[in-house]
């Protein structure tokens, strides 16, 4: 696979981003699952409890649970502790409205993109992801896989 191949995503909230992926294996509810004080995963049941969300490209299948996740995402963006962008496998309207309201009120964006299932599965924590406003994006693996025999 060409690591910098251009992928076609669906922009749910359009915008540009260039950052590092934090891949969550399980859906996270931002409602009480992200700390606005620390910008980290705060869900005690989450496999990645304590992982830093601030400034990362948050990659997870979809959100879960409470409608309050919209407010927490918007407040996190306002405070400057939100993710740089979000890449999902399914549309999540609760996250989308949070990003739209933060942009409307504070002029600060958090692009949200829905990736193809196959592409989504190739993203690893630490990969560099570049997202364009039209929803196209590239994934650059953090470390090239070691080749057998050097």
């Amino acid at each position: 696979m060409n690591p910098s191949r251009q992928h076609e995503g669906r922009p749910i909230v359009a915008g540009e981003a260039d950052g590092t992926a934090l891949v969550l294996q399980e859906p996270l509810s931002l409602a009480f699952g992200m700390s606005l004080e620390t910008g980290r995963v705060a869900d005690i049941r989450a496999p990645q409890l304590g992982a830093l969300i601030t400034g990362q490209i948050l990659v997870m299948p979809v959100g879960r649970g409470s409608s309050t996740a919209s407010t927490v995402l918007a407040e996190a963006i306002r405070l400057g502790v939100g993710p740089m962008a979000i890449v999902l496998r399914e549309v999540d309207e609760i996250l989308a409205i949070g990003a739209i309201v933060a942009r409307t009120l504070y002029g600060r964006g958090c692009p949200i993109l829905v990736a193809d299932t196959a592409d989504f599965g190739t993203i690893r924590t630490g990969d560099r992801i570049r997202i364009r406003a039209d929803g196209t994006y590239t994934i650059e693996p953090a470390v090239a896989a070691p080749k057998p025999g050097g």
Partner: protein
Amino acid sequence: MTHLALEDRDRRVLRGRDGRAGQLAMEIVVEMAEAVGARQLVDVESAHVDGCLAIGQVSADFPELLAAHGGRVAVPTTLNVSSLDLLHPDLSERDAETRDLAGRVMDAYLALGCRPTWTCAPYLAPDRPAFGSHIAWAESNAIVFANSVLGARTNRYGDFFDICAGLTGRVPLAGLHLSDERRARAVFRLHGLSERLLASETLYPVLGYLVGDLTGTMIPAVVGLPASVSEDQFKAFGAAAASSGGVALFHAVGLTPEAPTLEAALAGRAPELEIDLTLEALVAARDQLSTRERHALSAVSIGTPHFSIGEFSDLRRLLRGRRVNEAIRFYASTGRQTHAQLAERGWLAELEALGVQIVTDTCTYVRPFFDFGGGTVMTNSAKWAYYAPMSVGVDVTFGSLAECVESAIAGEVARDDELWRPSP
């Protein structure tokens, strides 16, 4: 790429016919419609707003912006819990800044014409949405109840979109507003549960927690529930499934209105997931809802979602006139409508005399304002058990309502282990 076809009346609102607030709300509705690939908008009959809970500055900024531009709801719009109990203002401690923010948020939504219902269980009111009607509700437990038990149609709407739908009366015709999107995609079958457990109120939050965790965002159909399942039990099931998963609609085969048969629930298609739920899986799920067992008990919290009058009747029956232990704080959260019914029946004074503190307008887990006494908190709500360790930082012991009551009287966690044993 689908194309969104707006009606002339929508375009007029977008051009500012209803003022800047209506225009802004319609811009957001249209952006969401494009995001979800809707071809048109649909009228909603009501909205339920979750955004009135003060989480931070943004909670006030958005409704205040809409109110400053003269926004006014176009359809009946109810309000979810806030951060303040206006009927019991001294019940919990808050600093002036927190009170000020909570008050600003509440005032802004009232200025927009929302009704001061302050409840997470708007479906307990007599004017419920009709079967098949389109509504725009936020608050995950209200969404799942409206879709599943009432057969009304709402997507999983988040804070802020709820008020945009209230101001415009319009939402994207997509997702659960469409018949085809309402079919079950996962099937869960119950096996080998005792009659006593099937009749017990505590099975339903545990089952909802387990199904929500397993199904994620797929619509589940549950097979094998008894005909005796009450609305209160569905309420507990839905609230749990909407916490552990992204469940906005479930079908209980033979019981809920869109699932007369499994085939009907599946709309004749094959499920993508089929799971048999055993007693062992349910016991494991129940255990996961407790953070700590046998830790000194200091409080009990019930009423998440807000208690119904029927649940208060159960509480009275279980208390049998006995007093809550003096060392235990016992909170029961409910809506104002139910609160008024309690007063009319003389139950309010009776429950308070027995040591039950009624909480209205808010809920004990949403913000860290209530005194839980430092020990473990017992609850019969899977939703409370799921969120409270994170939202208010307490240890939780999950149990049935009967276990909560017996524990509150004894002053320590009392268990009925027989309930979860295999049937003989």
